[in-house]
Structures are given as C-alpha cells and as structure tokens.
C-alpha cells in the first residue's frame, strides 16, 4: 500500500465523456492494498468502463462483503452509493438494493473467500434469483488478508509460497454460475484490461445476473512459481475463447479485420456487443457447451477467458416477480397502502 495520495491534477488532454466527466471523476479514495495487487487493476478497469459508458456515478450501488476484494469498492466511484456488508453476505444486500431501486446499476465485488467459502450459499442463491447486477469476483486463490492460506478456488496441486501443495479440489465459480442460471458468464484476467473493460461494460448493460470471474494475482502470497494464479502462469495458460467489444449506442461500428467469426448482439440500452469468436466452433449461447469447455480446459491446465456464455433475452428477478416498472422506493404511500377496501378484497381472495 502507499500513503501518498494520488494528486488531483490530471492530464490536460484526458478525454471527457458525455456527462463532461473524465475517468478521474470515477475514481475512489487511495487504495490500501499491496503494491501490484491485481484487485487495483480490476478497480481501474471498472473506473474506465463506467467513464467510457458515461454513466452517472450517483446511479450506482456498489456492494461488497469482507476481504481484500471487498475493500475495493472504496477505490472506485467515490460519488456513488456503497454498502460494505458482513462476510459472504453481500448477495443479500445486493438483492435488497436491487429490489428497492431497480434503476441503480448494481456492482457487487467479492473474492474467492467471500463467495466460494463463507458466502457460497448466498452466491448460489443470488445466481438463481437472477438479480440484475454485475457480480465481480476478484479471484486470487488465496486468503491474502490472513497471510496466504489456500482458498476454495485454489487448484489442487498448486503450492503455497513455502512450497506446500494444496490437497483439495477447487470450486469453480464459473461452472457454478453456468449451472444455476446466470445469464451472463465471463472470465478474465486483471492484467488484461483490453479484455476486461468491455466485459465489465457488457456485464453492466446486461439485463439479468452478470458474473465475471477475474483472476487477480495476489502479489504478496500467490504470485510464485508453484501458483496457478500468478501473473506468469495465467499469461502462459490463458486461452481466449470469445472477445467482446462494447460499442456505445450510435457509435460507428468499424470493420475489424482481426480474425474469427463476428456476431453482434443488441443490448437493452441500444448499444451493441460485438463478439469475436476465436474458436469458430464455440457458441457463447450454448450453456452446455460452455460448461463442457470450461471443464475440459481446466482438466488440461488451461484457463479459458472471455465471454463464455450470454443469454441476451433472459428474464431478471423483477420480471420473474412481476414488480412494477417504477422503483419500489419511489412508490408513494397511496400505492403502497391502498386502504381498507383493497385489503378486504385481498382477504376475500384468501378465504
């Protein structure tokens, strides 16, 4: 960590977005994480994504649990709503926030301990309930705050900093999310903002539960040779499946000569998500194929990254529950409390 506060002065040519804000206006307070922590890069990617989307910071709810990852909402979007909750209980708070005000963009940041250990029950159920939010897991495979014990996502055979191997099978949150009904599932790497930023943008714009598992190396305890979540290992073993380019509404869609098959997906806000399949046979709309691919790659020691699965037409929790289109917190007393007559009507139905 550093004690030196980032100066407020900025580059004179820094781009200004549609709201007249620069990227710097989406930052938070100074990070107290270790120097070189992948989580700081994830925060920077969120800052960049939100600034480029020209989203108003006060329209965000950022929620988190406990852990290094869960400290990070302090480090981005300082002008938004935030709730740092109990360990593993961020999904409950996110659910409440989203139910009360469906107009907020909800970002949950959690870690492998917070989501795959103490909070695994909450994680499973928020996926099931399809809360309209972006759920980011900063996944470093270690308990950094308590000095480097193996976490539940640490790969079997991967070693601790002292060389002791992990004896247990890892929990793969991506597979879980695919299985239980997430309508947007991606995996990325904190050291690859070119991939991560468009995924965050797409996840924010996606209607339904968007999950991004971000491999985010712990420089202090899990960035050594025996680790499968180090900068070097991930760079050497990542296999990009589907790249996503986020194209804002009305922006000119330029022809990309790069490679692979292109597919444009219309997003609810009018923007376009351009998918570039690096493996022609892979279909990011096929949940079963996604599950199989993730498992196969894991077996081969590869880390698949990119947009793994997306159902653009999925229903979210509000659709399922049939709530009104106006946010619940905006409903006034006459609507919420329609009077004795209405109550008697309801009671009559139950007799």
């Amino acid at each position: 960590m550093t004690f030196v506060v980032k100066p407020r002065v900025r580059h004179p040519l820094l781009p200004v977005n549609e709201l007249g804000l620069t990227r710097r206006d989406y930052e938070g307070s100074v990070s107290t994480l270790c120097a070189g922590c992948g989580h700081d890069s994830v925060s920077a990617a969120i800052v960049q994504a939100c600034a480029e989307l020209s989203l108003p910071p006060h329209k965000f709810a950022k929620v988190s649990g406990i852990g290094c990852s869960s400290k990070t909402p302090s480090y981005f979007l300082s002008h938004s709503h935030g709730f740092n909750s109990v360990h593993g209980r961020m999904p409950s708070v996110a659910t409440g926030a989203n139910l009360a005000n469906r107009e907020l963009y909800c970002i949950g940041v959690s870690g492998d301990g917070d989501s795959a250990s103490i909070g695994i029950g909450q994680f499973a159920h928020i996926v099931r309930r399809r809360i309209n939010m972006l759920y980011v897991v900063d996944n470093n495979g270690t308990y950094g705050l308590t000095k480097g014990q193996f976490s539940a996502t640490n790969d079997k055979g991967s070693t601790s900093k002292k060389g002791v191997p992990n004896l247990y099978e890892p929990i793969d949150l991506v597979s879980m999310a695919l299985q239980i009904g997430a309508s947007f599932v991606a995996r990325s790497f904190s050291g690859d903002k070119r991939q991560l930023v468009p995924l965050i943008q797409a996840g924010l714009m996606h209607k339904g539960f968007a999950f991004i598992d971000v491999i985010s190396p712990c420089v202090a305890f899990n960035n050594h040779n025996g680790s499968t979540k180090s900068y070097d290992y991930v760079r050497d073993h990542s296999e990009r499946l589907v790249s996503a380019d986020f194209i804002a509404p009305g922006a000119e869609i330029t022809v990309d000569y790069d490679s692979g098959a292109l597919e444009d997906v219309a997003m609810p806000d009018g923007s376009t998500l351009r998918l570039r399949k690096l493996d022609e046979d892979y279909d990011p709309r096929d949940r079963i194929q996604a599950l199989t691919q993730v498992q196969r790659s894991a077996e081969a020691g590869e880390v698949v990254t990119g947009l793994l699965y997306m159902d653009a037409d999925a229903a979210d929790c509000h659709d399922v529950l049939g709530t009104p289109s106006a946010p619940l917190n905006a409903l006034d007393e006459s609507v919420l409390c329609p009077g004795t007559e209405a109550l008697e009507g309801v009671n009559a139905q139950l007799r």
Partner: protein
Amino acid sequence: MKATNIADPNYFHKVVDCQWACPAHTPVPDYIRLIAEERFTEAYMLNWDSNVFPGILGRTCDRPCEPACRRVRTEEKPVAICRLKRVAADHKGDIADFLPRVPKKKNGKRICLMGAGPASLAVARDLLPLGYEIDMFDRDPAGGGMMRSQIPAFRLPADVLEEEVDLILNMGVNAQFGYEITSMKEMLDMDYDAYFVGTGAPRGRDLELPGRQEVDDHISIGIDWLSSVAFGHTSSISGKVIVMGGGNTAMDCCRTSKRLGAERVTVVVRSAFDVMKASEWEKEDAMSEGIPIINNRPPKEFLHDNGKLTGIVFECVRPIPDGKGRYRYEPSGEPDVVMECDHVLMAIGQENHCPWVERDVGIEFDKWDCPILDEDTLQSSHPKIFFGGDSALGPENIIWASAHAHKAAISIHLMCQGKDILKDRPPEGVNLISQKMGVHQWSYDAEHDDAKRFLVPHANKRKALDNIKIEVELGFDARLGLKEAQRCLNCDVQTVFTESLCIECDACVDICPMDCITFTPNADEPELRTSLTAPAENDEQDIYVSEELPTGRIMAKDEDVCLHCGLCAERCPTHAWDMQKSVIHTPQLGSYAAG
C-alpha cells in the same frame, strides 16, 4: 521505437526542463529542495557555482527556465524559480568556507580580461582557483559592467551588486578600472597567454528621422542615459518624456524617468504589445506604476521649435498575424498622431561593437560586424582571443554571460595546458542515484502540492516612486519561499524503469495521475504517440521506451506531464520503477560541486 538510452546525459537532462532551458544549466530543483530545507547557504552556493551571480540574477534574470517549467504544462503558472534564487541569496549565511581556495603560488599563465562585466568576472572566477594570474581592464570606474550601468537601483540595489562583484574581484583579480581600451594591438603587445573579450554590447541604436539632428540636445540613448544615472552624472529629468522602444531597457528608462521627476512618461512602441521584447513582468511593473505603453506607432518625424523639441509624429499601423506567431504591419487608416514631449529616450536596441579592435589583428568579422566564433569554444579566428557575453553573439541576458564564461574558461585552460580546446573538453555526464529510503520513504518530498504560484510582495508604490534607490520587489520571506519551493515538481528525480524486474501487473498504469505510462505493442514514434493512454501531442518531450517485455509489449512513458510524484515506484511490487535523482554534470572549471 528503439529503447531509450538513459545513459545519455542529455536524456534525463531534457526532462529537467528548467535546467535544460537555463543557458548555464543551473540545477534548479536541487537548489529549490535546499531552500525547502532552509539550507539557504548551500542553495546559494549551488547557484553561485553554476551561474556566478545568484543575488543579481534572482532579481534581474530573463528567466528562460520559467516558461519551460513543467508546471506550465500541468497547470498554468511556473514555479517562481527566479525569485526563489533570490530567497537563497537574501537568507544565506557566511559563505566563506564554501568558496574555492585561490593558490598563492600562480601557475605562470597570465590572462587578460577585457571588460569587467558578468562574462569577464565569471571567467575570472573559474580560472583563479587554478592559479591563473588575471588582469582585468574596464573603462568604468567600478566593476559590474552593464549590471551596474544599465540596471537601475530600484531593480538591483547597489549592495547586492557589489557583494557579488567584489567577491570575485577579491579572489585576486588585478583590476584596472577607468582604463579605456583603444587598441587590440596594444593589448596583444602586453603578451598575455590568452585574451577574453567581455566588453558587452555598449552601443545603443539611434534613429535617423527628419528633425533628428536639430533636436539632438533633447534626445538621449537609453543605455547611455541609464549609465549616467547609475554613476550619478544625471539625477533628474523634467517635462514630458517619451521612451521609444519595447525592450527591457525601455522599461528601465521609463521607470527611472518617473522616479527622477518627469512630469509625464509614455512608452511608444512601433510593434504590437505581445511581441515586445520586454519580459512580461517588466511590462506589468511599468504599467502598474502608471506608465502608459502605446503600441503600433512607428515614429515619422521629430517636431521642434528652433531646435527645441516639441513633439513626435507617429504613424498608425495595425498588426496582421502572419500565422507564424509574428506580425506584419499595415497602415490602419487613422491619421498620424502628434505626441508632445520635451525629452526622448531612445531604447530601440543595442549592438556589440568593438571599434577598438583593428581589423588586421587576425580576428575575422562577419557581415554584421560580429566576430566569427567557434560556438563550442568561443574562440575567435585569432587562437589566443576568446569572446563571451553580449560581445560574442549579440545582446542577451546575464545568464548567457555566465554560460559563455564557463565555456571560454575551459577553452583558455585547455589552451594554456597545451591541450586541444575542442577534443580535450571534459564530457557531459549523468549520475543516477536512487532516492528510496524505506518501504514508503523517499529522500525527496514526492507529494504533489497543488498551490497556485505565490506573489512576490512589493514596496509601497508611493515611496518606491519617490526614491530611485528603493527596491520595488521585496522578495519572498523565508515562509513564502518555503511555500513556493513546495510547488517544484522535482523533475530531476527521474522515473527509471528496469525491464527485467517488471511483471506487467499494471499497478503503475493504474496509479499514474497523469496517464503517462502505457504498456503497448511497439510502433514507430508517430504511431506510438497516438496509441498511448493519453495522447502525447507535445513532440518536444520525449517518450521513454523500454526493451521488449515478456508479453511482447514495451513500456512507453510520455515525459511531457509526469509529476515525478513517484507513485509508479511506490506502487511497483518488484522495484521495476525506481525514483532516481539525475545529477547532470555540465563541464565547468573549478566546480564547487566537484570539489
């Protein structure tokens, strides 16, 4: 792009914009840090070593460093570098122990310095500690040259001038004042081992217009008039005064007239306000003393009544921008104006002029009558004769005289040692010294201070206008000086990158407040400049490029607006970034820093 060679002394020197812009390459951030530590004496000596006249320059320098200051690019106003120099001079303690020792036993070489201005004095300062015998000749009754004769006391008090001039004279200069040099041949006959001409640009330009001859009694050449004020021959001026010219001499003339009793003083300039040669602050000071500056008025004719000047006829023109930052002028269509006046001070430029140098002594002159010199050695076509200051390359500022003097002194020393004055010159050099003290400790104050530039307090205006000897600027006190010193960005503490240590975690990219750092595939410079995190549009500032990293990318850092805040190094988990102070070694004799 090819990876940057940071071992090249010029690379990091250029990053220290102020030092790079300073003709004498004074290590500005270094002395500003000393001021912040209240080590005024050391700050003064660092200056003295490099520019020789810190107290004088802290009041009168043309400040080429300030427009170059990085803060102009990151915010707006530069650090008040010049006035901080004065803080060091005003608050210094006893410097005796810091001064170079002059050996009693001489080395047997005799050097003749012509003129006792800043250039000659600085040459004497550089050569004396090496045992040279120095003889100095000047026509004025005291040393200092134009610093004494042309800069009025309200800008440069006599005691400040004398302190720094006498310091050098007392190192053992054999000075002969009141000695009018009339012949170079005569000087050559004295058979010195080397000659240095530092006689300045003593001829003020005149203007031949109808009526000029008839009103001769009412016209003075600006620098001559200032000189006669400085030496006490002139103590008043009356009636309406017109100062013609737009340079610093014009500003000194008008402000001096105002103090010597002129009824009304007006500055009339043929060109536009923003292209006047006078420094911004000199113009501001003149105007704040109630002196109007009238622009775009070329003079046409002097009007007189039987030889008594009554006024000047001016044409009216208007400036048309030529697109290159200059103007051409065309008649504005307004009728000519007549401005009444009783006296004219002509401050329209000056020339280096050596009528006393016979044209057959072996010094070649160019078509503008300037001596032909080797720019690196300042040697004329006569091997024993060197030039420096205004007499070398035309009118410039004092700081140029110091810079020339260092060069010429090296040449003279090498020649007297029988060495090649070009090939044997000491090289430039750079040392890089890590500033890391602890996990989060740096030996410099890295934190960015966003204070605006502090204003220098001025003397009460009415009192100042009453007495030519009252200094207008009071200078920063120690407290304000400390505050202003905090604004310095420490551009000499460099961001040094070591490829082999980098794990490409992006921590530096994320934290950099100015978006200077990018990890990107390599490309040619023009393409790279457009593909960085923030566009690098300032081509005068370099891009620091690393060797290829394991991912096949390079690190590219735009030096343009880097705050040198050290956050990249602070956030780097592997010490691939380090903050290292670059010490630039500018070749110089008798260096205090080297000794």
